[in-house]
């Protein structure tokens, strides 16, 4: 599998604040990657560094095995950051023409890409007359002009209405299905869960996890339990080494497993100890729960 981007010990400091700290990960061809993290976790800064707009403090990054300079490599990359930035007085067509000139792409691509994002009828309208959804779609068309090896999207659905969000997501899925490598930064977990196969989780500039989405937390799942003897159950579970965390809310006890355990074995064990369960569900955590668990577990105030 060929490497598209590799980041090695990247650090960015803004004065006293460390936005990105010793970050390393690799992007391989053909996968859909998500960079996940709360606001201010260093997602945009990381993308800014590899996209040549933010200067790194230390560390290295390499595009395409490091054989070309960053700005040459970026001609093979399509990227959209935060908000679509175009010249308001130019038409959609002229804006894309300018991008073609920068990337060294033929103008024939313009109509083709405008067709994909559904803006072909508005190609001669000035950019300033566009709605935010249309602007974002134009940005995607612009990023696709060079048939990029990798498409980088930073919060692509930010500020859009539900319809706009849906349009953009459909587009991303369509592009991903055609085999384009995608790197998607977002704080919206369901967005990442729906499109990405791999994920990098950041918190306060530090990497918490990188790998496949479904292997994010080495979790054996958890039980959701209800019984009449709630306090006894909690006491019992807390004493058991097989569980690492037990919480109780409105009579619903959640017990996280430290080692594999079958639901029926567990039920039997409880019955033997004189606790009759009225509710027993074994579940694998959703991405959101995994994410919260991950960002929580490094919190100094954990219980």
């Amino acid at each position, binding site marked *: 599998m060929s490497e598209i981007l590799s980041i090695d010990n990247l650090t960015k400091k803004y004065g006293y604040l460390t936005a990105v700290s010793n970050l390393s990960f690799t992007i391989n061809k053909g996968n859909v990657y998500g960079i996940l993290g709360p606001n201010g976790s260093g997602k945009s800064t990381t993308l800014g560094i590899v996209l040549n707009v933010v200067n790194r403090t230390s560390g290295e990054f390499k595009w395409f095995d490091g054989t070309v300079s960053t700005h040459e490599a970026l001609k093979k990359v399509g990227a959209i*950051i935060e908000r679509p930035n175009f010249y308001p007085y130019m038409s959609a067509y002229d804006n894309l023409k300018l991008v073609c000139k920068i990337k060294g792409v033929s103008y024939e691509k313009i109509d083709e890409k405008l067709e994909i994002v559904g803006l072909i009828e508005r190609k001669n309208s000035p950019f300033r007359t566009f709605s935010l959804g249309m602007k974002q779609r134009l940005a995607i068309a612009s990023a696709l002009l060079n048939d990029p090896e990798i498409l980088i999207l930073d919060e692509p659905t930010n500020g859009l209405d539900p319809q706009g969000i849906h349009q953009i997501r459909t587009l991303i899925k369509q592009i991903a299905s055609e085999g384009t490598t995608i790197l998607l930064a977002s704080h919206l977990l369901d967005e990442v869960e729906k499109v990405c196969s791999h994920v990098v989780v950041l918190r306060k500039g530090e990497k918490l996890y990188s790998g496949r989405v479904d292997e994010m937390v080495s979790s054996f799942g958890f039980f959701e339990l209800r019984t009449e003897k709630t306090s006894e159950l909690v006491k019992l579970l807390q004493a058991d080494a097989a569980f690492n965390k037990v919480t109780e809310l409105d009579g619903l006890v959640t017990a996280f497993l430290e080692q594999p355990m079958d639901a029926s074995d567990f039920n039997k064990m409880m019955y033997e100890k004189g606790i009759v369960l009225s509710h027993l569900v074994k579940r694998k955590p959703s991405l959101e729960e995994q994410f919260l668990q991950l960002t929580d577990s490094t919190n100094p105030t954990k219980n």
Partner: protein
Amino acid sequence: MKRLLNIELQKLLLNKTSKVLIIISFILPFFVILLSSFKINFFGLFTIELGEYGIFNFPLIWHITTFFAAFFKIFFAVVVVSMVSNEYSYKTLKQNLIDGLSKKEFILSKFYTIVFFSLISTVLIFFITISIGLYYSSIDEFSIIIKGTEFILAYFVKLLGFFSFCLFLGMLLRKSAFALAFLFIEYILEWFIYWGVYEAFDNSTEKAEMVKNFLPLESMYNLINQPIQRAIMMYSPEKVDFAYDYAVHWYEILIVLAWTGIFIFLSYRLLKNRDL
């Protein structure tokens, strides 16, 4: 180079404001010069024909046209400043870099545009001057016509230096209004420096002038000194105390070219070290 110029020209020429200002700064001066060379009749009361006073004769005409045309550079200066500040306010600078333009190429595309328009303006003024001159003067000796063309070179260098200064101010301050205001402040600042040196060196105007000649705006002004005194001297050669050094010196050109280099380099350094 053609690609970079092409990119910047598209940005400028599709913008209505820039287009109007470009026309004003490069076409208007030639109309003014052309009009002033015509015979003007003031309501039948009297006629003014500037040509009669001999100011359109070679070699003085080179000095006159370049001096007055250079005032219109301020309109293009607004374009230069706004072509940088717009990139910041539209955030297209960031987008350009992401699309694969290097920071060096970004500055170069602006610089090439400055050179391009300065050249056009210089070529235009050359032809206008030579046509008016040939019309008014009886001289058709090639060596005399050519004498004084150093003012054309000075005109080009003056535009180049001034616009590079504007480019730098735009990069530094990111807002057109601030950049243009700073231009005015710089003018005052140069007088303060003049005054400071004057005080420091026992009221020596000589030393103060020497220092001021190295400052950006003054060095650009020095390239083409005012021609009015020279025109008066032509009529009354007996006024000896009117004599002054109006020639274009090689070191004057060198100082302005050095500033041009410094400004372009500093613009690049600023951009290189900035997080966008």
